[in-house]
């Protein structure tokens, strides 16, 4: 999982980066609040942030408040590091929007455990979001398909019956066959859409948007449950 650390002291920053990397995190470092803020504005911003409270310029507390005031699309877990240890500072830190708090000098194992807890919270968030997305897709698919299948049934029936009355060689028969083939295509699509079981997307218009990949989403080989 990707982590952002914001620590102005060089030695502390290097040590923090080293232990986090050793524990398997993909670390990005910032040496002050402004730099951390910029990193967190990117679309690929790390979801886990370890902030030092005491930094020149924008301190950890202020950065926390600014981040929580933002309307962010993805969850952000903030761990505040500080040399202060008074209980009202802990309260201020949590109220400013930090999810957890570790006092310096910290015990490495405690830091590791608390960051691990943050990672768990984020992973659960992502899992819930994915399930809700799939639920949304299924609800929409059901409604749309049901509505579409009604007029499709009517058009299929009439084009089928009209074709029966026309001779094979009649030029209008060919046109009608094409019309019926397109209607059958739509029918196939609604059938596929109603069998979506997974949330899968693909790029549309060169990666600027994502749309549901109907084929991938409905390709579950599970069959009837």
């Amino acid at each position, binding site marked *: 999982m990707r982590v952002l650390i914001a620590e102005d002291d060089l030695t502390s920053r290097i040590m923090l980066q080293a232990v986090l990397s050793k524990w398997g995190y993909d670390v990005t470092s910032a040496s002050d609040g402004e730099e951390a803020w910029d990193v967190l504005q990117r679309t690929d911003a790390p979801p886990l942030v370890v902030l030092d409270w005491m930094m020149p310029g924008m301190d950890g507390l202020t950065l926390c408040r600014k981040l929580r005031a933002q309307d962010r699309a993805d969850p952000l877990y903030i761990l505040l590091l500080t040399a202060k240890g008074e209980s009202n500072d802990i309260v201020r830190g949590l109220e400013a929007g930090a999810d957890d708090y570790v006092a310096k000098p910290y015990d490495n194992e405690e830091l590791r455990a608390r960051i691990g807890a943050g990672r768990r919270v984020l992973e659960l968030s992502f899992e819930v979001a994915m399930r809700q997305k799939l639920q949304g897709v299924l609800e929409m698919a059901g409604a749309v*398909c*049901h509505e579409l*299948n*009604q007029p499709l*049934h*009517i058009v299929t029936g009439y084009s*089928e019956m009209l074709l029966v009355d026309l001779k094979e060689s009649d030029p209008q028969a060919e046109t009608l066959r094409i019309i019926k083939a397109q209607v059958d295509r739509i029918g196939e699509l609604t*059938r596929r859409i*109603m069998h979506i079981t997974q949330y899968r997307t693909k790029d549309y218009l060169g990666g600027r948007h994502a749309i549901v990949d109907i084929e991938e989403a409905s390709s579950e080989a599970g069959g009837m449950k």
Partner: protein
Amino acid sequence: MINRRILVVDDEALICEMMKWAFTNAGYEVQTAASAEEALELVKTQKYLVFFLDLNLPGMNGIELCRNIRKNNPLTIAYAVTGYASTFEVFDCREAGFDDYFTKPAEMKTLFQAAEQAFQKLARWSRNE
């Protein structure tokens, strides 16, 4: 001589019209109803042997309707024609007494085959009693 009377139940008038026209052209006698309640009234006055029922009806739904028809008329054949396909629906349909289950859009060719098979079966059953 056995009648070839079909009852089509669907709350969408255009669907009833299309199915009535198609089945009539194919040689059957067809009546339609826009709701389960209307269908049950018709069943009291006329004998229908084959039913094509939409499941999503206002008021009583198609599954309940099938149960009702089955209860009083066991020697009939009922087909579900539905706009929403779900595996749970098939189970409910079988349990309610439907003989088969079709999803919209369904080709009339398929429904004609089903109707023909239904009447053949019914003719065979009445010869055997």
